[in-house]
């Protein structure tokens, strides 16, 4: 499909998003690729990770040896606690979200649009879905970052003019990380801030169903 480019790994995508976190930020990581972000916090920063189950102040993912039946993240996967940790119940965990204490929520998604809409809970043709905490997070967090693969398994673009799937929330997305680059929805286009090494803007544009505007300081994705 592309020339010299190699799509970014999931770890690299997670690491690039983690580099956006500011010191002291409170951040929620969604199911899927986002939960990897807690493995890649830059060493000069303290980030307080918050999970829907009420675990506050967790850190990196646990190894098999470190895993216990007691400490899991929002993806229900074992993690370690940091010295800042505390625990609340589920209703209080979402109270924190609605109160606006989260500096960022990093969510997986099926689609993201130039107007900041996104869809991540029901795929086409299905009756049920998985809303999880995404709607609460999307309306409560100060920033909503999406972390997803740029195209579906069969090659259809996920970055769109308008979402086709049922929305999770409207106009909230501030940043989108895919395996092709880092994008900002600006209302009528995506600003391409960083691009995966070896890809051209034209190549990425062909895989995006909305105008792509390269940032003046466009550079390769680095962590």
């Amino acid at each position, binding site marked *: 499909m592309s020339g010299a480019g190699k799509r970014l790994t999931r*770890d690299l995508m997670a690491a690039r998003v983690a580099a956006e976190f500011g010191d002291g930020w409170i951040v929620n990581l969604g*199911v*899927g690729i986002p*939960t*990897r972000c807690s*493995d*890649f916090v830059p060493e000069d920063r303290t980030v307080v990770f918050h*999970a*829907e*189950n*009420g*675990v506050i102040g967790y850190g*990196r*993912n*646990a*190894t*098999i*040896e*470190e*895993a*216990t*039946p*007691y*400490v*899991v993240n929002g*993806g*229900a*996967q*074992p993690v370690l*606690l940091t010295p800042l940790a505390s*625990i*609340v*119940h*589920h*209703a209080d*965990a*979402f*109270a924190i*979200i*609605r109160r606006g204490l989260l500096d960022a929520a990093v969510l997986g998604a099926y689609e993201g649009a130039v107007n900041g809409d996104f869809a991540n809970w*029901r*795929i086409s043709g*299905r*009756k*049920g*879905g*998985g*809303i*999880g*905490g*995404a*709607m*609460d997070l999307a*309306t*409560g967090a100060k920033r909503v970052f999406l972390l997803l693969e740029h195209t579906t398994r069969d090659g259809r673009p996920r970055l769109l003019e308008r979402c086709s799937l*049922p*929305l*999770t*929330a*409207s106009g909230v997305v501030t940043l989108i990380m895919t395996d092709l680059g880092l994008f900002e929805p600006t209302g009528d286009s995506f600003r391409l801030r960083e691009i995966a090494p070896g890809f051209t803007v034209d190549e990425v544009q062909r895989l995006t169903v909305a105008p792509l505007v390269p940032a003046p300081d466009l550079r390769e994705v680095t962590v």
Partner: protein
Amino acid sequence: MRSKVVSSFAEAVSGIEDGSSILVAGFGEPGTPHNLIGALYEQGARDLTLIANGAGGPRGDGVTTTGDLVAAKRVRRVLLAFTASTHPSRQTELERLHEAGGIEAQITPQGTLAERIRAGGAGIPAFYTPAGVGTEVAEGKEQRTFGGRSYLLEEAITAGYALLRCWKADTFGNLVFRRAQRNFNPIMATAADCTIVEAEEVVEAGALDPDVIHTPGIFVERVVSIPQAGGRLRVLPLMPASASARSS
């Protein structure tokens, strides 16, 4: 005062009638009352309404899940934050039954679910929340503006039973949860007429520091000790395919 401690999981779930509504705690593995779910499966009650975060598929390792109850067609209705697998390529029995019309499945944002249960346990009949405004979830719900922002009216949830798992319980039903075990457990305890708890350890009343108790015993009807009832104590959560896990 009558003791709340019962000696078997079967006794703990006895009397749960056909048609009951049941709150089932847990988020992933921690805090999930697998032994009570297994006993409910054996007990035979049908036509159930289950209220939980999700209904996991059968695990195939001898641990009974709410997904097994669904697959056995014992459940008439579910109210969940996940009615489908988080992996869209894997379809659960719940999804197949739902699409075939064999079960009523209502989906709700997780924070709204948690707050509705908390409200039910707090005597608050309804409240407003921002989650879901402008989405399919808002359909049919009253929308109202406070301070220039839109909110949805959501009503309280209560149920006949709650199935819980805790770390330590005392004989009065005071409960302590360990780490992520807490999740839905304390709020579900408050919203059920009959709260039933499997405990990793049961101690005498007075042995737990009142300051560290997460659920007061006044919310709890029945307690069963997992080791004394011969239950399964440890169920490990799923490992991620993440960097640090791989590196070990």
